[in-house]
């Protein structure tokens, strides 16, 4: 039996209760305005994140564990992701204050954000395939609805249908993989599955590989790895822009959490040379994402391709994981950084779209004068995404590429990952800089200042402080990421 006082259960109870109560309030009070629901959701998320922070600071939780006898484990790995996901959810919620004004069903919107964030948090905490799958679905199903939430907008609906079809396919593939893993080992607990995998005879090995391949494919859909990425730009462009922030910064990172829990451990147990394949995928993913991003004229679409590219960067850390502890640490750090950066960028885009109703890059000329704070936030986050030195993106990229070069002693091809990453970063600076140039250095039709939404300003200020602050003083986060890395060398001694 699980301890009902553990962090994930308390988070589930808190956010779930608020998420269920919100629509009921809307039925009873018949209130059309959205601020009440946004306030409640914001309060719940703040309570949740402060609870997690309290647990971490008071050192009540155990260090990163690989598996437990329960479906959930209360460890630092989960807490790290919980912090990241909850930050993204809070940014989305605050960013939606303005976006949702006057739209229908605000209570359902915020309730679904809360439920989806429970799913994202629980994925990181789960140590059982059933729990992982169920949490995966709790993350997916609300986001299907959220992506299609603008019912009058054809593009939102199209985005949602594509997202739904690929998401449902990915969950189908995942459950097929789970079924094979269960069939081979007779258990659904990840620890039992791994130890069962390591005891398999050679005749069962192809099946185990099939299962791991299905996991990679299934999670890869959500992460946006290259052969499975075709739905992603459409969905990010079409869905409400705040929701695109949630998808890009939240669900994608939850996919990485699931991948870290399942794929890496599973493949280590199988003791196969899978790292090269992941490295290839990483290079292709980042190259495709960045090359496609250059050609985009639409701000959100460009950010979507950029997030594909960043999936490639994060994958570098995963591909060198078994030989370098620092690789996973760097991946975790970049996951947190990228979550904040991308969420900030998308919410800035949402602010631009709601106030000026433009998303084409040519239309945002002279934005620096019209919306100074939003464009400052967008600039900072874009520079951080590109990895410009004093910002947080620089440190995490540095750690990623550095670990790749470090791993060159074991894997001779690993430094090429770093080379590809640096080249791609340079490439990305081109289109990020293009946007910055449009905003600040080109003459537009008007340079009259427009009133910026307060909620967007709040998010921007928070993200500027976060990005610059971590860029200046990254040590505590790096320490935290270090403590969240599971001890993989202990794992490889199973067999």
């Amino acid at each position, binding site marked *: 039996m699980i301890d009902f006082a553990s962090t994930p259960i308390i988070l589930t109870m808190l956010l779930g209760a608020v998420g269920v109560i919100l629509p009921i309030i809307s039925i009873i009070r018949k209130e059309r305005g959205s601020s009440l629901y946004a306030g409640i959701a914001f309060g719940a998320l703040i309570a949740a994140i402060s609870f997690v922070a309290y647990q971490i600071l008071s050192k009540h939780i155990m260090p990163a564990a690989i598996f437990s006898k329960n479906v959930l484990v209360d460890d630092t790995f989960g807490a790290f992701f919980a912090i990241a996901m909850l930050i993204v959810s809070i940014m989305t919620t605050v960013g939606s204050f303005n976006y949702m004004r006057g739209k229908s069903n605000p209570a359902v919107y915020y309730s679904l954000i809360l439920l989806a964030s429970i799913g994202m948090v629980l994925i990181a905490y789960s140590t059982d*395939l*059933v729990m992982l*799958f*169920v949490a995966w*679905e709790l993350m997916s*199903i609300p986001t*299907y*609805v959220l992506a*299609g939430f603008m*019912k009058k907008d*054809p*593009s939102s*609906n*199209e*985005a*949602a*249908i*594509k997202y*739904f*079809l690929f998401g*449902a*396919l990915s*969950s*189908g*593939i995942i*459950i*097929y993989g*789970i*079924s*094979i893993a*269960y*069939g081979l080992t*007779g*258990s*659904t607990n990840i620890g039992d599955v791994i130890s069962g995998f390591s005891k398999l005879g050679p005749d069962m090995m192809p099946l185990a590989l099939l299962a791991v391949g299905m996991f990679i494919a299934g999670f890869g859909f959500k992460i946006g790895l290259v052969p499975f990425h075709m739905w992603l*730009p*459409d969905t990010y*462009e*079409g869905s409400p822009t705040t929701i695109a922030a949630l998808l890009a910064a939240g669900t994608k990172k939850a996919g990485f959490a699931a991948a870290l829990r399942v794929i890496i451990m599973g493949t280590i147990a199988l003791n196969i040379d899978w790292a090269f394949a992941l490295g290839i995928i990483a290079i292709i993913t980042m190259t495709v994402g960045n090359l496609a991003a250059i050609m985009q004229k639409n701000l959100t*679409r460009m950010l979507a391709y950029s997030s594909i590219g960043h999936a490639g960067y994060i994958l570098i850390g995963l591909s060198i994981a078994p030989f370098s502890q620092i690789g996973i640490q760097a991946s975790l750090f970049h996951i947190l950084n990228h979550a904040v950066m991308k969420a900030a960028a998308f919410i800035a885009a949402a602010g631009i779209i709601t106030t000026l109703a433009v998303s084409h890059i040519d239309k945002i000329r002279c934005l620096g004068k019209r919306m100074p704070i939003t464009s400052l936030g967008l600039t900072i986050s874009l520079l951080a995404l590109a990895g410009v030195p004093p910002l947080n993106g620089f440190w995490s990229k540095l750690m990623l590429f550095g670990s790749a070069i470090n791993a060159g002693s074991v894997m001779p091809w690993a430094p090429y990952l770093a080379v590809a990453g640096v080249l791609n970063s340079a490439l990305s600076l081109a289109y990020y800089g293009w946007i910055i140039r449009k905003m600040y250095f080109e003459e537009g039709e008007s340079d009259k200042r427009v009133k910026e939404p307060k909620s967007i300003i709040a998010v921007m200020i928070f993200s500027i402080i976060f990005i610059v602050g971590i860029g200046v003083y990254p040590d505590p986060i790096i320490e935290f990421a270090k403590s969240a890395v599971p001890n993989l060398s202990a794992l490889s001694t199973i067999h």
Partner: protein
Amino acid sequence: MSNGLIDFVLVSVALLAIGIYGLAVKRNAIRMLFAIEMIVNSANLNLVAFARFIPNSQGQTLALFSIAIAAAEVAVGLALIIVAYRMYKNIDIADFRSLKG
């Protein structure tokens, strides 16, 4: 019982393949939903077959979860399809052309 485990697993693989075929070929949103249902069902069949032959109850439990989740997924998917139909008067996703890419 005279059927081996492998028979059931082979049927499940056939269903999986048919589902993938449907997803690859069909562009009608409801048909694609059918194909996804087939994939999920093939996984369920696998789970129950393994649970019968291992034997323990976890496979059946997971199958129950999977069935219920599929119901939730279908509800959301059909709602999206109905909204799409109201907008486009069509449910062929090849005809959804508001996003270029």
